[in-house]
């Protein structure tokens, strides 16, 4: 790769947050091997620069490029970076129901490579916590996990990467900070471009530049003896991080069953309590609506994984990588099928597999639309204080038309 090529470019970037411009016509161009420390006072826009560099914030003007390719511009064009980058957000980005190793493997799998993480966990005194849930860690340990997830992609593969680290040392003890400074030296020497926001003066030692008043001030990194303390070599094959996280979180928390399932079972219970099974004629339009209503109610709850990501403020971490956001569609599909079959049995009907299949698809598709509402409002300052469920009646008309179609087609 041409070392003179800019790995990270922010051109004429203006970002508005709330009612003020946090960044205005901001320019930054970082080449391979450059490490920039952002250490201005609170409210100066350090996190905004990191998040804008990750393509997380809509731009009023300008564009963001990774490795010369457009990632985001002010007209809304957005592309997945060709080369995955390392990201530590101020909000950790970890889900409490994930294990320590799972979050770090997610970060590595997004780069399509894996390395042995054991030495790194030992280095930061996390090896004994490897299989623990992140929710069980202390604040500092949790921060170490987030920091490793943002830093380790820089040790993967032969090509340099962009590493965006927002307050990676927040809550870290002095020995851990010293190790982090050593690792940042090593990452820079591998050719990675590092953008690091921190108030800790320790990090000035490994920076090639410091950003002051939107101007890059060049400096020489402190002398250090580069220790090749660990061999970084690929290990197991990477796996699909989004799919694995979707499956793991649903299996571990039973979120879809607990949230969507309860809504479906309650609907089924109410139907069984209020409707006389003998009065239901399967040739009537009401019958298919009746059999599908619990599956529909389950879908209206939305995707529980999104609620979990919101709760742990981890949604931005997944959005930034643009490789998908964990989902519950498969679990929703199985749940919808099960509920439809149970409802048919509850009304003394023989099970129609076709209707059960439609029930599964109904739950998954309803869940997908409600999930879209949730994601579309995720940028708001108070995403939980928005009344997206008011919009769910939009789904009743398609449901009514589906029921009508099933009846007209004599599918039952």
């Amino acid at each position: 790769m041409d070392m003179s090529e800019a790995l990270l470019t922010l051109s004429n970037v203006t970002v508005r947050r709330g009612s003020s411009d946090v960044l205005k016509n901001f320019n930054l161009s970082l080449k391979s091997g450059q490490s920039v420390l952002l250490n201005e006072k609170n409210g100066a826009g350090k996190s905004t620069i990191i998040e804008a560099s990750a393509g997380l914030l809509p731009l009023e003007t300008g564009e963001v490029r990774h490795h010369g390719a457009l990632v985001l511009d002010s007209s809304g064009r957005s592309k997945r970076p060709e080369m995955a980058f390392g990201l530590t957000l101020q909000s950790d980005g970890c889900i409490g129901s994930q294990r320590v190793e799972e979050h770090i493997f997610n970060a590595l799998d997004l780069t399509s490579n894996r390395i042995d993480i054991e030495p790194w966990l030992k280095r930061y005194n996390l090896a004994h916590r490897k299989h623990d849930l992140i929710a069980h860690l202390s604040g500092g340990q949790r921060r170490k996990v987030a920091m490793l997830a943002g830093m380790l992609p820089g040790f993967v593969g032969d090509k340099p990467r962009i590493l965006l680290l927002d307050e990676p040392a927040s809550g870290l003890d002095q020995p851990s900070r010293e190790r982090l400074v050593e690792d940042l030296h090593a990452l820079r020497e591998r050719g990675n471009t590092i953008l690091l926001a921190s108030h800790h003066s320790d990090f000035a030692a490994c920076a090639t530049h410091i950003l002051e008043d939107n101007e890059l001030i060049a400096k020489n990194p402190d002398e250090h003896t580069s220790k090749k303390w660990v061999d970084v070599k690929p290990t197991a094959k990477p796996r699909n991080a989004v799919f694995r996280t979707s499956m793991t979180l649903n299996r571990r928390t039973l979120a879809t069953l607990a949230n969507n399932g309860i809504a479906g079972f309650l609907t089924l219970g109410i139907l069984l309590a209020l409707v006389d099974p003998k009065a239901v004629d399967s040739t009537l339009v009401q019958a298919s609506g009746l059999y599908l209503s619990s599956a529909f109610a389950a879908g209206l709850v939305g995707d529980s994984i999104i609620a979990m990501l919101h709760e742990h403020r981890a949604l931005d971490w997944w959005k930034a990588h643009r490789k998908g956001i964990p989902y519950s569609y498969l679990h929703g599909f199985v749940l919808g099928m099960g509920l439809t079959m149970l409802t048919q049995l509850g009304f003394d009907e023989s099970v129609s597999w076709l209707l059960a299949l439609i029930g599964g698809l109904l739950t998954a598709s309803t869940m997908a639309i409600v999930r879209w509402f949730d994601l579309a409002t995720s940028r708001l300052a108070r995403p939980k204080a928005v009344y997206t469920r008011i919009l769910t009646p939009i789904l009743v008309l398609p449901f009514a038309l589906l029921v009508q179609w099933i009846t007209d087609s004599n599918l039952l």
Partner: protein
Amino acid sequence: MSKRAAELVLLVGFIGIGITLVLAFLKAPSVSINAFESPDAQRIFYWHVPAAWAAFIAFGFLFVGSALWFFKRSDFGWRMHVAGAEAGLATGLMTVWSGMVWGSAEWGVAWDWSDVRLNTFGLLTFLALFLVLGRQAQPDGVETRDTFSTFGLFGFVLVPVTYVATRLWQIRHPGPVLGGGDGGSLNNEMAAVLFFGAISFTTFMIGHVLMSMRITLLEQRLESIQEAMDKV
């Protein structure tokens, strides 16, 4: 424009709506008892249709305001978005409520989930409710404005769908009474009362929009004063 212009327009609209009601009950001719299940309830038509007409214009304001904010970053556009949502909610609820009363009398049910026009119009009203409640729950800022403008832009798709719904899927709702292609089904007296109602509801809606835009402008001024005081 005078500071009291909005109140004046709103008052004229209110009076016009009152007169429309009087004309609907006392002046408009009765309809054939063979054509309707509940002929007396047909007089709700003089409230229902003008309210729906005004609601469509309000949703037009919402759309234009959303587009002005989203593409031009216009504060005026955002005020128009807010005003369009609030006026759309007010006139939309007038339409839905009157339609449900009329539906109960004429069809025997207040709501039919399979009637496309009924549902798409109901959704427009829900969209306006979502926008009004949602905005009140969020601090004003670019994130709030972008998000709700996006919903305003997408939601407007429902307006043409609602308009053509009875042409494509005539389930419960009758076809268009004006501009339907067969010369319509209104005599002159009916059309006059309907026209007066449309003017009145439109005036009311415009007064509502003007007043709402003024309130939002005052909110914006107050916020900028507070921000200036924060920096002192």
